[in-house]
């Protein structure tokens, strides 16, 4: 059990820090949160800079244009980027962390050559068309149908919650190709170009009032058979393969960010007045803050445990579900604590009353999704109970 970094790891950190120090001051101002075309330009411009500096696809194998960094270097990359205030992966999320790795593992040479370089360069943005109105937690029950017609699949159906769909070039799409097979055995993974005729993308307003995700309607959309990744009806396995790319680094940036927010919260609490003294004079509040700080410290340690496990075995082990459950709930509690300190100043999504509170309020709303997206907390508890503890399934 060693938390110290090796000289090579320290050198990697140092070089990255220098580079971030040079390049970040040259970035334009961040675009407005609900201006998605501007966000695409901003996020992809950052991806191009990463690419030129050799940091694109940090965890991708070098054979496919990635940096081939170790899990620990990946951790350092995310930690340093967050501390320096670098842009987040943003609209490049699906391409870099999901579709790209899937193509590396399961795509043909042609598919890889066609898509991997532009994803790394920030020229190609992807979205994920998995969930449907009737298929959320029970993803394998999806019903969007694809029927083979010559050299095309003809797709009809309805996808929901497709993040970045309005600005994406491609979509990783799960369709049903065999309606009679057991639900996991009739699914196929397709590459969909978002400018294909018959697609109708309708932005959905989120609780933030903006449109991160959309509904996507398919009306006889023709997708070439050559866009299939893996075999027909083998799409569920193809989807699961991507999970092996997860190397314990899922929440690094946000855990680092949470530690900063705890410090900011203390600063605000020392400044605001409550009941004739500073809010920080309230012992109950201090204890709650101390408790949350302990939890984020432990989540950081758990991240390092997962990364170490990924280095040793290739997968982060049991820490992934543990991390998702505890991190998402801790983050929500942090924002509630922020609201407690801010009181009425927490009613504005931009800073008000001379307090840097807007961020807490905005994230208080945004973090509502954390316990839902990417496997709800209830589903995570099922996973821990059944796959880790070996408890019997319900049915």
């Amino acid at each position, binding site marked *: *059990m*060693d*938390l*110290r*970094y*090796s000289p090579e*790891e320290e050198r990697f950190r140092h070089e990255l820090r220098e580079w971030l120090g040079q390049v970040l001051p040259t970035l334009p101002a961040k675009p407005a949160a609900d201006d998605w075309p501007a966000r695409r330009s901003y996020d992809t411009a950052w991806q191009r800079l990463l690419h030129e500096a050799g940091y694109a696809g940090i965890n991708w194998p070098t054979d496919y244009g990635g940096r081939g960094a170790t899990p*620990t270097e990946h*951790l350092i990359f995310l930690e340093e980027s967050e501390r320096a205030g670098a842009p987040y992966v943003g609209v490049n999320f699906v391409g870099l962390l999901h579709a790209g790795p899937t193509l590396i593992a399961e795509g043909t040479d042609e598919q890889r050559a066609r898509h991997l370089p532009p994803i790394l360069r920030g020229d190609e943005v992807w979205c994920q068309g998995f969930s449907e109105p009737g298929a959320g937690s029970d993803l394998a029950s999806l019903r969007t149908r694809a029927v083979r017609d010559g050299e095309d699949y003809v797709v009809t159906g309805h996808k929901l919650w497709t993040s970045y769909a309005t600005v994406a070039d491609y979509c990783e799409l799960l369709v049903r190709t065999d309606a009679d097979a057991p639900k996991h055995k009739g699914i196929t993974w397709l590459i969909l170009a978002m400018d294909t005729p018959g697609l109708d993308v309708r932005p959905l307003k989120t609780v933030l009032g903006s449109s991160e995700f959309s509904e996507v309607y398919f009306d006889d959309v023709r997708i070439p058979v050559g866009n299939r990744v893996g075999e027909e009806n083998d799409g569920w396995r193809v989807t699961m393969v991507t999970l092996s790319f997860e190397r314990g680094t899922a929440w690094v940036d946000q855990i680092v960010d949470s530690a900063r927010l*705890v*410090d900011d919260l*203390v600063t605000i609490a020392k400044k605001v007045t409550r009941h004739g003294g500073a809010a920080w004079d309230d*012992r109950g509040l*201090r*204890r*709650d*803050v*101390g*408790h949350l*700080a*302990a*939890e984020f*410290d*432990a*989540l950081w*340690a*758990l991240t*390092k*445990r997962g*990364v*170490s*496990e990924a*280095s*040793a075995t290739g997968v982060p082990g*049991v*820490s992934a*579900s*543990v991390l998702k*459950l*505890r991190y998402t709930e801790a983050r929500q509690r942090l924002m509630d604590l922020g609201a407690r300190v801010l009181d009425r100043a927490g009613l504005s999504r931009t800073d008000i009353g001379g307090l840097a509170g807007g961020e807490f309020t905005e994230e208080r709303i945004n973090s509502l999704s954390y316990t839902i997206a990417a496997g709800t907390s*209830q589903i*995570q*508890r*099922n996973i*821990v*109970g*059944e796959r*880790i*503890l*070996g*408890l*019997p*399934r*319900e049915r």
Partner: protein
Amino acid sequence: MDFLPTADQLELQRGVRSLLDARFPLERLAAVAAAEPRQTAGYDETLWQALTETGVFALRTDLELGLAEAALVFEELGRAVVPGPLVGTFLSASRGAGAVTVLETQALPLLVAHLDVADAVLLFDESEVRWATGVVGETVASPLDPLTPLTEVAEVPAGRVIATGGAATRMRLEGAVLTAALQVGLATRLTELAVDYAKTREQFGRPIGSFQAVKHLCADMFVRTELARVAVHAAAVTLDDPTAEGAERAGSGAKLLADEAAVTNGRSAVQVHGGMGFTWEVPVHFLLKRAWVHATEFGTADDHAEDLALLL
């Protein structure tokens, strides 16, 4: 950076586990609790001897290992619910005494655990640690944990100063981290007990562990334990590294998360066992009562939460 336990560390931990599984299975707890005289209940001379011979208390002094290894071993001692003045004895390994217990002079009333079997008492003051022998007091008639006999001492004994300033702070912190490791061990065993019961007990024609209300209780027990475990490991490793910063913060975080894991898991384990969980026969209550005792040692979760906040 490699935060996984090394092969040697795992072997050490496995060794202690198999020793304890053989010598001190949970089924023995009830018998040990019933032993007379009550003042020495829980102290098992031959087990203590075996632990001493294995080097459990002398890991640092004789085996040149660190607090990291000690934490792994103390997890096992907690998991087996081993009674006795474990932490005080470990912290006194270099002093050539046998069993050594602890008195925290700031915490009232002044209660010493296992005084009748201890050769000496470590007195933890606000700023120093002292060494006292010949401490006497009145036996508490009905201690919460039948395996942790308590003596109430009328006044703070005198004693010889053995640590001040940074050294005293460090000793207190080590005590907190080792106690936290015991709590992680308890939390681990409580999860095992609940999960085993949930797999075998059937109601409505199926194992109760298939009901989500029960399954999710178990999942949360596991999650809580793993988070506390890494917090304890991180604190131990930080204390072992003279160049590392943040030992106090890490130690406080470890103790508060471990207290919470052990105590909350104790309640959950009782709940999962239903009526059986309220019986003396099922060992769960021994673990919960021990967790309640440790939660008052080397700072409560509230104390540590506040200490940590003041470090921010």
